[in-house]
């Protein structure tokens, strides 16, 4: 008499085979997922960010806003020119600085500084910011992203390394800009 619920030898081995493949697949998935997400896990705790010098304090005239460039601290051999980054340096007076990302706080297009009208303007969707980076008009919900900065050995140094986007660490670090003062 054949018991219908009994497991046949072949059926058992088929199931065992499937299970075996499942285990191998799961084991293999661990390194694959780690590899796929390496760009995320590597950047935890701000590991991508470090302090980079922009130039001597004297290169930035007081009361003016100048474009400065720096090389992104984290690079890959095939990056080419893309590691060169621009930022706007505003020297208010003495050692008082503000360093803004060129990336518009709306969707990241490069904003341009117009000293005559005292505005940063974005060519994409018409965002505009005052000289202190606070929002003036247009679609941006906040002011320009600001890099944390310090003066070290007479050099303006900023903490950079990540693309400034509304959700990125740099935005969290500096938070909302207060409304226009200066």
């Amino acid at each position, binding site marked *: 008499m054949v018991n219908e619920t009994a497991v046949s030898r072949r059926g058992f081995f088929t199931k065992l085979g499937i299970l075996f493949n499942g285990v191998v697949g799961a084991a293999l998935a661990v390194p694959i997922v780690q590899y796929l997400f390496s760009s*995320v896990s590597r950047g935890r705790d701000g590991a991508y960010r470090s302090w980079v010098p922009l130039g001597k304090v004297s290169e930035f005239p007081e009361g003016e806003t100048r474009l400065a460039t720096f090389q992104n601290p984290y690079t890959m051999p095939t990056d080419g020119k893309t590691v*060169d980054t621009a930022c706007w340096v505003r020297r208010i007076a003495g050692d008082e600085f503000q360093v803004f990302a060129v990336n518009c706080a709306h969707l990241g297009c490069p904003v341009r500084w*117009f000293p005559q009208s005292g505005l940063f*303007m974005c060519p994409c*969707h*018409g965002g505009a910011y005052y000289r202190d980076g606070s929002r003036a008009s247009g679609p941006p*919900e906040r002011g320009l992203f600001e890099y944390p900065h310090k003066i070290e050995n007479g050099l303006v140094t900023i903490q950079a390394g990540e693309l400034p986007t509304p959700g990125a*660490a740099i935005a969290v670090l500096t938070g909302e800009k207060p409304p226009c003062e200066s």
Partner: protein
Amino acid sequence: MRIMIAKVGEWFDRRLQLAAPIREAVEHRVPRNTASWWYVFGSAALTIFILQIVTGILLALIYVPSAGQAWSSLQYLNHDVALGWFIRGMHGWGSNFMVAIVLIHMMQVFLFGAYKFPRELTWIIGVFLLLMTLGMAFSGQVLRFDQDAYWGLGIGASITSRFPVIGPWAVKLLLGGPIIAGATLSRFFTLHVFVIPGLLIGFVGLHVLMVLKLGINEWPMPGRVVRRATYVREYEALTAKDGEPFFPYAIWKDLFFSAVVISAVAACALYFGPFGPTGRPDPTIIQTAPRPDYFFLWLYAVLSLLPPSLETPALIIGPVVVILGLLLLPFLSGEGEKSWKRRPIAVLTVLLIAITLGTFTHLAVSAPWSPHMNSWSGDPIPEKFLRHTTALERQGALVFQVKQCRNCHSLESIGGERGPALDSVAVRLTQDQLIRQVIQGGGNMPAYGKNLSPAETTALVAFLETLHPAGQAPARDASRDAVLRESAEKTSGAQP
């Protein structure tokens, strides 16, 4: 010779056993009325997809997916490889045509009710095919690694970063690192060349297989209603009674249209040439105004015109709603009328979507919301505005020029369209209102109070007050007249 060929053919078919299923597929009976010019878009989309694969492989012979060299390799393709420009043109125009034809195909399927029972899954796979086609279009634009591609990626990253919680991580996953750089291009190359095309080939295969197995949608007749219980029987009766083999009865129209489309792509490639690359992808060159390719222009316009507070919800919820709506469509109206003549809401929906997308695309071409970044230096104030003016007013015109008011405002149609044209601003605003608007801003205008000295403001407003048509007086504050009259009466009353 013939016998020889037949023998070779027999040898292969004995081993492959494909002749019978292929014959069955090409000779399957289709309703006579589907041999229509309305039914050619699906096959045309497939033809263009094959064209894209062929031209894509040809481009990959030269193209280098490296952030340092991609741009130069495209220049090399354009200028140094024999007919490299033409192959690039075919691939670029092919992508534009593919997006357009896929959309037309989808519209036709929707209007002809072809998504209804039993073809729901064919429609759903079609929705995924549309998404993949758009994915190919965007990733292809990235591979054209120029300024537009670079800043386009920046826009993509900014949108991604707006997702709550996972945003910053998703950006790093998208870019393959902390910034747009070598790893970013490599992963978009992988998506564009391996991942999405692989999925596309599989899904296109399923899509076509289902069209063959379920039969092409019959020409919709008003009143011929789809019912789950009876449809399959009715369709079989129709093809048996009024059907013809697909080959050669219907296929000639598909063949003709496909040839026309390929010729049109080639003609565009010959006449207009390849797309870009525009400037070198150097992030320190910020004198650039990035624009997406035409199929995403409408989105570019939407992102400018949405109120800021609605943008993030719209960006995150919008696509989910649209995609869910498309996927659920065959389940919400899987039965009933197929003919567009009995489905006014369907027709209106298509019209509404087409007009909306068309309007946004049209707006994005001129981008009136963007300041003109160079009109302050390029265009002097027209002479006619300076004639018969006082020294103060002319000084105001100078302030107007120097403070770059025309980045956003036009005079004689020269200048930005972000703010209103100022040719007759004095008719609209009184002196007080002009001063207030200049100093405090408002509407969409920044406040200039901290950027103008009182003397400059006075001069500027004096100039603005001259801006009115010859026969029309400038706006006056009526209350000021009343106050002046009152004080005049008081002084005259006190006199005697």
